[in-house]
């Protein structure tokens, strides 16, 4: 009798447990994780880009069930390795980060997005993309192939106390006969660099430096990015309508000579500086002036490492005084875009991922984080209240970015862009290292450029360049041979 009781109670217990379990089992929600179990492979050119993807990976997994496996190929080898893969007819990656200046070389390997937008009803919030970035980061031969990921431009940063201390101002006025202010022209920049170099302009006994820059010719540039703003403001351009290089003309030589002359006012090691070193010096209060990528601003406002939070100014890159008008030519370079490889076997999942990481909220997360080095590229980023309150004066920082948009000078976005830029940067650093005279260095660069044009096919290059020339003209950027001598 007892046994029957025990058996029954056990049965009821078990039955109850099963029922409860069955009732409370989570629903197999079909729409919640449509791509559950998929892993897509991404390739990026730096550790911090990989880091930026980790910021969104949790939400990505929750929403889509997709994981991203990211490979980092260092910037020096990135273009070469990825293009070699693509040119051989395939690639192991689904999601590809790339530099938009190389779109002419990469574009044909990317999957056009428009048919998929139709098919999957994707929304990339295209209207929210800042026009200057939309122009360079989206299309190849008219077809939409990529989305922006990082809106790189150059703006100027300065250490406000350095410019506001009364004794600094007095000393400067005595020596240079005009008021100390954040430089508006190149002459003022060079004067400031000379003035601030070698003593404690922050009131300390330390020997500090004049200004910051990145002069290493690696990745696809650095030193040439710094030369370019001067060069274009002196009326220069890359090529003329016949693909003859103009870089070794008077404007180029003047720009480079000024850079060589002011070398002593830059920190030791500047010839091997890439992007981050001068930014670090700025935020540690060791240089008072720097024009560099907008991501500098986030590091300036990051209390974890910056000593100048709330004490920095943001503005337009200096320009040249031409007949009383100041011509600014900040660089828009290189930026980063994300695209889907044409050879991917997981295109649908990758496209959903691309949509996700590009949407206004996720991309805002990425561009607001100081450690990602990614910069705003959506209008909503620049107007975001959250961003404006991210650090003291963040609103002024965002305003400076917007202020620069009408004057931006792009890279030479034609086939072999990477090679043209590298060879020019190399020669510029050769001159800065005093291994060659500025004119000789630029002559060598022009010769190398001719070699590249010859190898790629002069007609093809001329046609591609012709388009860019027209675009620049529409923006008011033209070759002006007389400016080099006139500029003040």
């Amino acid at each position, binding site marked *: 009798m007892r046994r029957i009781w025990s058996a029954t109670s056990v049965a009821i217990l078990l039955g109850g447990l099963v029922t409860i379990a069955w009732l409370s089992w989570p629903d197999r929600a079909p729409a919640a994780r449509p791509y559950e179990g998929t892993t897509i*492979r991404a390739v990026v050119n*730096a*550790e*911090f880009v990989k880091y930026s993807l980790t910021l969104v990976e949790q939400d990505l997994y929750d929403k889509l069930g997709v994981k991203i*496996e990211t*490979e*980092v190929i*260092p*910037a*020096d*080898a990135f273009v070469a390795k990825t293009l*070699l893969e693509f040119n*051989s007819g395939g690639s*192991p990656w689904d999601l590809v980060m790339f530099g938009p200046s190389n779109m002419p070389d990469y574009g044909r390997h990317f999957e056009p997005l428009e048919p998929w937008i139709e098919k999957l009803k994707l929304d990339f919030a295209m209207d929210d993309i800042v026009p200057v970035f939309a122009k360079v980061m989206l299309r190849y031969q008219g077809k939409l192939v990529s989305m922006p990921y990082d809106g790189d431009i150059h703006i100027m940063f300065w250490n406000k106390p350095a410019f506001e201390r009364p004794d600094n101002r007095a000393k400067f006025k005595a020596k240079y006969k005009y008021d100390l202010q954040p430089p508006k022209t190149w002459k003022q920049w060079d004067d400031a660099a000379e003035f601030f170099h070698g003593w404690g302009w922050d009131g300390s006994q330390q020997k500090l430096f004049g200004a910051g820059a990145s002069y290493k010719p*690696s*990745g696809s540039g650095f030193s040439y990015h710094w030369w370019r703003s001067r060069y274009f403001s002196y009326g220069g351009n890359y090529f003329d309508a016949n693909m003859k290089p103009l870089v070794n003309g008077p404007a180029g030589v003047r720009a480079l000579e000024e850079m060589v002359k002011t070398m002593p006012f830059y920190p030791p090691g500047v010839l091997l*500086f*890439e*992007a*981050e*070193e001068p930014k*670090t010096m700025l935020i540690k209060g060791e240089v008072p002036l720097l024009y560099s990528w907008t991501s500098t601003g986030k590091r300036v406002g990051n209390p974890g490492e910056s000593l100048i939070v709330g004490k920095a100014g943001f503005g337009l890159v200096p320009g040249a005084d031409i007949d009383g008008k100041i011509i600014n030519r900040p660089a828009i370079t290189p930026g980063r875009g994300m695209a889907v490889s044409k050879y991917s076997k997981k295109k649908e999942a990758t496209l959903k991922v691309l949509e996700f990481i590009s949407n206004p909220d996720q991309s805002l997360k990425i561009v607001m984080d100081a450690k990602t080095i990614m910069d705003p590229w959506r209008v909503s980023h620049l107007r975001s209240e959250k961003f404006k309150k991210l650090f003291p004066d963040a609103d002024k920082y965002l305003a400076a970015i917007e202020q620069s948009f009408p004057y931006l000078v792009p890279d030479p976005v034609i086939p072999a862009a990477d090679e043209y830029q590298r060879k020019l940067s190399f020669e510029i650093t050769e001159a800065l290292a005093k291994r060659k005279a500025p004119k000789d260095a630029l002559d060598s660069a022009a010769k190398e450029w001719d070699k590249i044009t010859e190898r790629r096919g002069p007609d093809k290059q001329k046609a591609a360049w012709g388009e860019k020339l027209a675009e620049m003209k529409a923006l008011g950027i033209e070759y002006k041979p007389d400016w080099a001598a006139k500029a003040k």
Partner: protein
Amino acid sequence: MAIALERSAVGARRAKRHRLWQRVGHGLTYLGLFAALVFFLGPFFWIVTTSLKGNEDFFAFPPVWIPAEPSLKHYAALFTRSSGARYFMNSLVLSTLSMISALVVSLPTAYSIARWRFGGGLLSIFLLVLRMLPAIALIIPIYIVYKLLGITNNYLALVVIYTVLYIPFSVWLLVGFLRDFPVEIEEAAMIDGCSRLRALVQVVVPIIAPGMAVVALFSFIATWNEFLFAIVLTGIETKTMMVLVTSYTSGGTDMFYGEASASVVLGVLPAFAVAFMLQRYLVKGLSLGGTKG
């Protein structure tokens, strides 16, 4: 009698001076060797301590040479965020496979040369020619062919290359060992009925084991250290420690000082191990016909 005493006194003084000089000489010798040790091992000391600096010690001035609170957090970061574990395993796997492969291929070849003078005197010439060849001359055609065959990012394809690179040295070393080995023992084994191959494996190998150990260690560490083929022919699955280190060269080593130094420490571990294991053979191995043409 007096003169004899004088002589011995003078002799004693000379002997004392001589001993003093000897002591000074000894002292200087050890001093010199100490200076050499500081110079050659100093960098390792600094890299190890740097990799253990947990907080702001790296950025401190006056410089902190030995961190007060050593921390393993950089190694942890290396293994989690930067997939350090995978690269370490790749290096390990590649080096081990190459080591085995080099032995398996070189031993019969060395045997062939030692016993039957295979190839005549070509060996030395071939060795020299191979040594003169810069890897860059090989990498270009090999890369093109491998890309065509789709075998980049492939362990075995890499092992094949590494094996060939070590054949000359390994063969030369083993030939030296084999020449010292008396043929009679082999013959005895063969008379007892085993084939030459079995004789080689069961009789010769155990006795020239030291030579094989040297070859093994050499191939292991040469593969571990190899760079050019590694950066060109590896992909995310097969990247080695050497390739990992290159991701810290841009952005300045200041930003990733912890992971950079940790990866160096891991990258030089085999060197320390091999140096100690080869202690006895370092000089002997080289004097085995190497420096005497």
